[in-house]
């Protein structure tokens, strides 16, 4: 077949077949998955061995391990039903940073991945801090690493004293932005209350690192949700004061015009209400769950 | 007479240059015919478009415009391909095969049975005098042997039309003679042979019809005899017992006189001049006539003339 029609026919056939192929692959991905073999990801269990074997190609091998780290995180992130999720995250990050001790992103993102609570991550702020401290040992002057340790302490472990100490350390490092000093002072003085939290989180939200922005954004929404729940609790109690019993549901409150509609948190998920105890809480289905422990205490 | 090949304003443009593409016209409005039977020579200097023409006939190239037909079918049509054989220019064949294996392979591709294939391969290899080397791998073959294998493979399907692209290039004189003899043998078998060459003397010995190309244009095509008869020279008169003074006088009139021997002279007359007056004059002077022969131009002279003037003429046979 020659001529324009022939060209178009061939092209359509080829593209069509590629389309079919892609479809088959997609079907395979949805229906079947291969059981994971952990050894393959690490290949070398010891960071020291990796360092020796990489010869002069340390940085490249570090890059490869970093890519594997991201792959591992991505895969396990999607696979909510798997057991032992994220178990290789720390070893992979350890390998990566041993091979290339100046790999700033590996320390920072790695710490972020590690701190995230399930189902978003393994929920290991202790490992995150250890990783960042390793980073500071290798590159002592990087204020970003100290700042991240402070942030993790503030948000995940709830240790405000440590957070304040680390904000302070960060503020003394070369090229540190001026607002770190203020943050250190605020945290040390009034680390425990909600107003401070909002202040600090607002500061975090204007960070240059997108994932810090997102984490702060999320924390702020959680605070808003908690405040919302508190306001609703006040309404429920007002109802009790008036009628002597708790309302049976949101509908009742709407009927008596104490509410205008089903109340929802900043993600528009309806609040949960227990009529037996009159407790208002953020729904288990809400994407905001689980709430950071540091915020619950306020 | 039946026509085996005909073209109608066949044109081929080539694009050259990567950043600023230009078109180079390899063949310009080629219109000619090849009659059945006999040997047709496609002649011209290097770069004239001979190979281009042959490749267009074999569908190795597609025309920019114009048409061609073989046995009434377009080039590339399987009906045409079944009835023709082709020897490419400077051929090479699969080094890892023996001559015999190559022929049986091609034979199979032409749809012949295994027995037929064996018989034909054997016969053809004998025809081209490669019988003794049939089992040697072709990487050991010399250029002449490859050429002969090439001719053998072009005959594998007993074709009516045999197309040979520069079949004598790179061969030594013995090789060239062998190929010439083969071509004549093929003609005697009733096949039509078409070959391209830039060596005109070969064509003179072999061809009944020729087509002359230069710079992509057809300068002349038709019977060889007619082409060479178009020359200016007329005839040569040889006489004996001619006195020297008479010869000098005749020479002075512009008829070239050449002394052959004692009293023996040859005189050349141009195309327009009839020989009778001269004969009468010589007879009157007491000379005796030896011979009167018409002079044809050689093909080379005709060719050079055509190329130089760039004239286009088609002499229909």
């Amino acid at each position, binding site marked *: *077949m*020659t001529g324009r029609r*022939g*060209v178009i026919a*061939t*092209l359509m*056939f*080829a*593209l069509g*077949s*590629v389309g079919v*192929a*892609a479809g*088959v*692959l997609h*079907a*395979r991905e949805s*229906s*079947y998955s*291969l*059981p994971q*073999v952990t*050894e*393959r990801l690490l290949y070398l269990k010891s960071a020291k061995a990796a360092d020796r074997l990489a010869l002069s190609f340390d940085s490249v091998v570090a890059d490869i391990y970093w890519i594997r780290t*991201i*792959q591992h*995180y*991505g895969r396990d*992130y*999607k696979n909510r039903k798997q057991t032992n999720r994220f178990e290789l995250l720390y070893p992979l990050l350890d390998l990566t940073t041993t091979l290339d001790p100046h790999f700033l992103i590996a320390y920072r993102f790695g710490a972020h991945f590690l701190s995230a609570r399930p189902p978003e991550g393994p929920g290991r702020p202790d490992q995150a801090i250890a990783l960042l401290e390793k980073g500071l040992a290798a590159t002592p002057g990087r204020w970003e690493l100290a700042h991240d340790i402070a942030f993790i302490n503030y948000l995940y472990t709830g240790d405000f004293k440590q957070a304040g100490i680390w904000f302070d350390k960060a503020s003394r490092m070369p090229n540190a932005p001026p607002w770190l000093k203020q943050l250190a002072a605020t945290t040390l003085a009034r680390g425990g209350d909600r107003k401070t939290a909002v202040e600090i989180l607002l500061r975090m939200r204007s960070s240059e690192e*997108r994932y810090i922005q997102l984490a702060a954004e999320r924390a702020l929404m959680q605070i808003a949700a908690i405040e919302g729940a508190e306001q609703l609790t006040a309404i429920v109690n007002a109802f009790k004061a008036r009628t002597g019993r708790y309302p049976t549901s949101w509908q009742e409150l709407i009927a008596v015009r104490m509410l205008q509609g089903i109340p929802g948190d900043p993600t528009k998920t309806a609040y949960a209400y227990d009529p037996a105890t009159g407790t208002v809480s953020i729904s288990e289905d809400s994407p905001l769950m689980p709430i950071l422990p540091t915020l619950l205490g306020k | 007479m039946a026509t085996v090949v005909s073209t109608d304003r066949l044109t081929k443009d080539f694009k050259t240059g990567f950043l600023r593409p230009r078109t180079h016209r390899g063949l310009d409005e080629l219109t000619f015919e090849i009659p059945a039977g006999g040997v047709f020579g496609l002649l011209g200097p290097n770069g004239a478009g001979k190979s281009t023409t042959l*490749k267009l006939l*074999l*569908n*190795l*190239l*597609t025309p920019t415009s114009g048409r061609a037909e073989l046995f009434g079918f377009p080039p590339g049509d*399987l009906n045409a*391909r*079944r009835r*023709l*054989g*082709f020897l*490419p220019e*400077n*051929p*090479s*064949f*699969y080094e*890892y*095969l023996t001559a015999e294996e190559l022929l049986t*392979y*091609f034979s*199979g*591709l*032409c*749809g012949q049975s295994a027995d037929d294939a064996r018989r034909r391969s054997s016969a053809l290899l004998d025809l081209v005098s490669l019988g003794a080397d049939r089992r040697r791998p072709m990487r050991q073959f010399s250029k002449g042997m490859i050429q002969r294998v090439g001719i053998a493979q*072009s005959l594998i*399907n007993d074709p009516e039309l045999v*197309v040979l692209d520069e079949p004598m290039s790179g061969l030594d004189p013995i090789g060239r003679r062998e190929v010439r003899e083969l071509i004549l043998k093929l003609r005697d078998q009733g096949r039509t042979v078409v070959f391209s060459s830039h060596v005109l003397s070969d064509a003179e010995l072999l061809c009944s019809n020729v087509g002359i190309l230069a710079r992509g244009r057809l300068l002349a095509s038709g019977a060889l005899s007619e082409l060479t008869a178009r020359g200016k020279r007329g005839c040569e008169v040889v006489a004996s017992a001619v006195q020297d003074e008479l010869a000098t006088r005749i020479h002075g009139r512009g008829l070239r006189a050449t002394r052959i021997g004692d009293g023996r002279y040859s005189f050349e007359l141009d195309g327009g001049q009839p020989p009778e007056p001269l004969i009468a004059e010589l007879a009157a002077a007491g000379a005796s006539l030896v011979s009167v022969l018409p002079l044809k131009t050689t093909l080379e002279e005709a060719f050079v003339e055509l190329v130089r003037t760039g004239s286009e003429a088609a002499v229909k046979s």
Partner: protein
Amino acid sequence: MTGRRIGLVAWHVFKESVRDRVLYGIGGFSVLLVAVSLAIGQITAGQDVKIIKDFGLATIELAAAVMTIFIGIGLVSKEIEKRTVYALLAKPLPRWEFVVGKYLGLLLTITVNVWAMGLALFAVLAVLLFISPENIRMSWTAPAVDPRLLLVLLLITAEMALLTAVALFFSTFSSSALVSVVFTIGVFIAGLVSTDLRHFSDIVVVSPAIGKTVSAIGWMLPAFSEFDIKSQVVHGLPVAGGFIALTLLYAAAYTCALVGAAVGVFSRREFK
């Protein structure tokens, strides 16, 4: 008739590769494997089975890929460069039969090589099984002479069928063998990382437009990384029959696309 002609072209590709001493690579591989396994046997206890399988399967896959790329490029490019194809195309052989025949011939060559090397691997594993004491055998997570290794060979063959098609495709339209090699290797590597491209937007936060574009590219590339079940089989983990079937179907569909495109290109090709 068509079948016979295609068969002839294919058979001659195979014949050429055999006479081209490709098969000596197989012998070399077997020797290498025996040497490695004997050395390993001295060092580790019980782990040699896994290492031999790992090393052997990886070598088979790599050797097959190298063979495919280099022979595959020569398939059509070399014929055009050396002009052997001119006489062939004057014969009553349709161009598409030529292309398909070349493909099948190379596929046959690679398949024979993969399975011959596989046989060598099995032989070595059988020897290992024979000489290993009972307690060592107990520690193996998968049998030494594991029939499931055949599944790995099957998928390697399918992967090579796809790679052959890629090599064939580039061989048909490029005039230079070097360019064909570069493109084929490039597509092979791209195919090996295509999984990450497909899931790009799951991990990296980018605009939806970029995410979708990168994903789309990932889906369009031939996914060479998706044929790898080596670790699963070596560790004795299960692999679903449906997984294998769909993988083979994928290879078949994509191969059709490439061979079809190669036929299309070659049919229109001009030979100066």
